[in-house]
């Protein structure tokens, strides 16, 4: 059978999908295996004796609800603040020409370029000096500050694509600046706002270096930190439990991402081409 030329494009796509999906499937499958089955040779993708023990262990483990709450609270709070701040910043960059605006726009992207690890020590000292180590404010502000640059960049591109005439007409009708943002820019930029919200949420949910460095108590830990805690070279690693924890950690954000996937894609593309 002759393979059409356009079908050739499918080959790398299929490889990419398998490359991405297979480890995920393997992880889900292994979370239902027994401890012994994990090390069985040859390995099998389908658990020989599937069991839900690992999920029971995770769900009943001490502190799991705290980690879920912390991850959820930090992700929602920091995402909301980051998106709110980004809307105003992006509007300013999109609509106002002021001195050094281009330089400022580039400057705002710098935190995005600097490796997160190099921010840890200065941030740690800063939070220590104000006595906020091991607290929600330290994490919320740190997460928010790292989310704002990307959000601002995407939203600025999108806002620039909204015809200024709409705002001019509203101004003539007496709309204030806030009203123009509230009733024109935000409704017209919903795809972009959803995009940056999902990206912020995902980033905050998965964040690890800051929570590792800025917290020292169990009550402040998030799901990624606890996942790190499950790795143990000194004892027998219960891989089904580690993988069950991983599945439960990524499931909410994965579901969220799948629901909003189309809007996220369109939001990113719109911001890029308008």
């Amino acid at each position, binding site marked *: 059978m002759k393979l059409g030329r356009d079908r050739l494009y499918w080959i790398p796509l299929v490889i990419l999908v398998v490359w991405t999906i297979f480890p995920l499937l393997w992880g889900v499958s292994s979370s239902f295996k027994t401890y*012994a089955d*994990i*090390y*069985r*040779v040859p390995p099998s993708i389908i658990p020989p004796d599937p069991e839900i023990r690992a999920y029971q262990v995770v769900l009943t483990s001490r502190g799991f609800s705290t980690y879920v709450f912390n991850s959820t609270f930090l992700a929602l709070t920091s995402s909301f603040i980051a998106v709110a701040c980004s809307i105003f910043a992006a509007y300013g960059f999109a609509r106002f020409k002021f001195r050094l605006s281009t330089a400022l726009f580039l400057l705002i992207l710098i935190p995005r370029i600097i490796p997160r690890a190099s921010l840890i*020590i200065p941030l*740690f*000292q800063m939070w*220590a*000096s104000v006595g906020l*180590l091991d607290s929600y404010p330290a994490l919320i502000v740190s997460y928010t500050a790292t989310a704002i640059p990307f959000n601002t960049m995407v939203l600025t591109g999108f806002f620039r694509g909204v015809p200024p005439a709409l705002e001019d007409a509203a101004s003539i009708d007496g709309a204030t600046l806030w009203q123009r943002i509230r009733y024109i820019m935000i409704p017209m930029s919903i795809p972009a706002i959803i995009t940056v919200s999902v990206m912020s949420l995902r980033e905050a949910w998965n964040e690890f270096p800051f929570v*590792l*460095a800025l917290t*020292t*108590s*169990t009550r402040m830990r998030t799901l990624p930190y606890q996942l*790190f*805690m499950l790795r*143990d*070279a*000194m*004892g*027998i*690693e219960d*891989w089904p439990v580690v993988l069950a924890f991983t599945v439960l950690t990524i499931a909410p954000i994965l579901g969220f991402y799948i629901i909003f996937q189309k809007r996220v894609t369109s939001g990113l593309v719109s911001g890029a081409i308008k």
Partner: protein
Amino acid sequence: MKKLLLVFMVVAFLLPATLAGAQTTVTVWFGRQEFIPADAFETFHAENPDIRVEFDVIPLEESHVDFMRNHAVGVAPDVVQIFGEFLATMVVRGTLLDITEYIEAWAEEDPEDFADIYDIAFDMTTYEDRIYGINVHSGPFFMGYRKDWLAEAGLEEPQTWEELLDACRILQEEVLTGDEYAYAQPGGAHHPPFWMMATFMSMGGQFRDTGTPIVDSEAGIFLIDFYQTLANEGLQDPEAHAWASGDFRGAFMGERAAFYPEAINIYAYTQEVLEYATEWEVMVQPPREGAEDDFRVNSFGWPYMVNSDTEDPEAVMKVLRYLFDPEICVSVALAYQPANRASVMTSDAYYEAHPYFPILEASFAEQVTYPTHLRSVERADILNEMKFVAQQVPAQYTPEEIAARYQELLDALD
């Protein structure tokens, strides 16, 4: 009446604050949840109402870094549990308290109790003759092996590394099939080189005063040659160089390996899947032929170190002595890692939980610490890379060449 009421109100207002002020808080970072005493300090609080212990778990892989960072801003805990190898760095940075005088006072005050403690409890926390903490638990690596497979091949328990290597060859040739291999060990990428250094020390490997291993010695070259042989003669799984600890433990427990160098706490799991004394057995890692006098049983531990800024060293010492109390540390020893106390390790309860321990008992009491080093992480990276190169198939360099190359890198750290 009004005056009396006023006095009562003032007392009622001030009393709790006064009482709270009289209570000392000692904060402890444990390296693993399993090290926390079973009673979560309940007995301690009952016996010491003036001291409140607050504790949390900071993984050992992070604890020394987190501690030093928090120490720099004055918010580090009073006690931190670390990997013993980081002692030098923490002392030199001035983060640890010299508790030598408290330990000497303890020895004087209760010599009977002190005699119950193995030397390693303080050897591992001593730097330049000063003591900075207590090593309550440690886990030297011994060797688990398949007794039934050796018997099938007509072999006895090997007494030297040379005999062990010969046994591996015979097992691989005559008994093992398919995915079964004679020797299992972790690769170097995932962990510090604990397993490698345990073997190195049993082979008679020595260290410089700085804690740098002398790998271009006879013992070091023998070790590299041993790894080259395992890899190049197919005596270990071809993927073993990439294995993490779980993989090689899984290989032995999954009946795919005949020998595995491991610690006592893992044997507890092994006996759940393999029948002890009939299917598998333990032994002390053997010496190298001709180097019997240099043989040592290594010790890796997780000592509790004391913060140099601690406000109440006496209270901290009470907490440390509580953690080392036989009645307290026995619960951790039975469920997790051995304790450095003779009364715990030779108790009926411990023998029952770990029936193989009598074989290891004498060696356990003679543990020698894996030396600390000021640049411990870099030392680990170099040693792991050396092991990786030693396991190349086919071998690219002679053991002497590898030893010379990595000795140079190690010496550059000093």
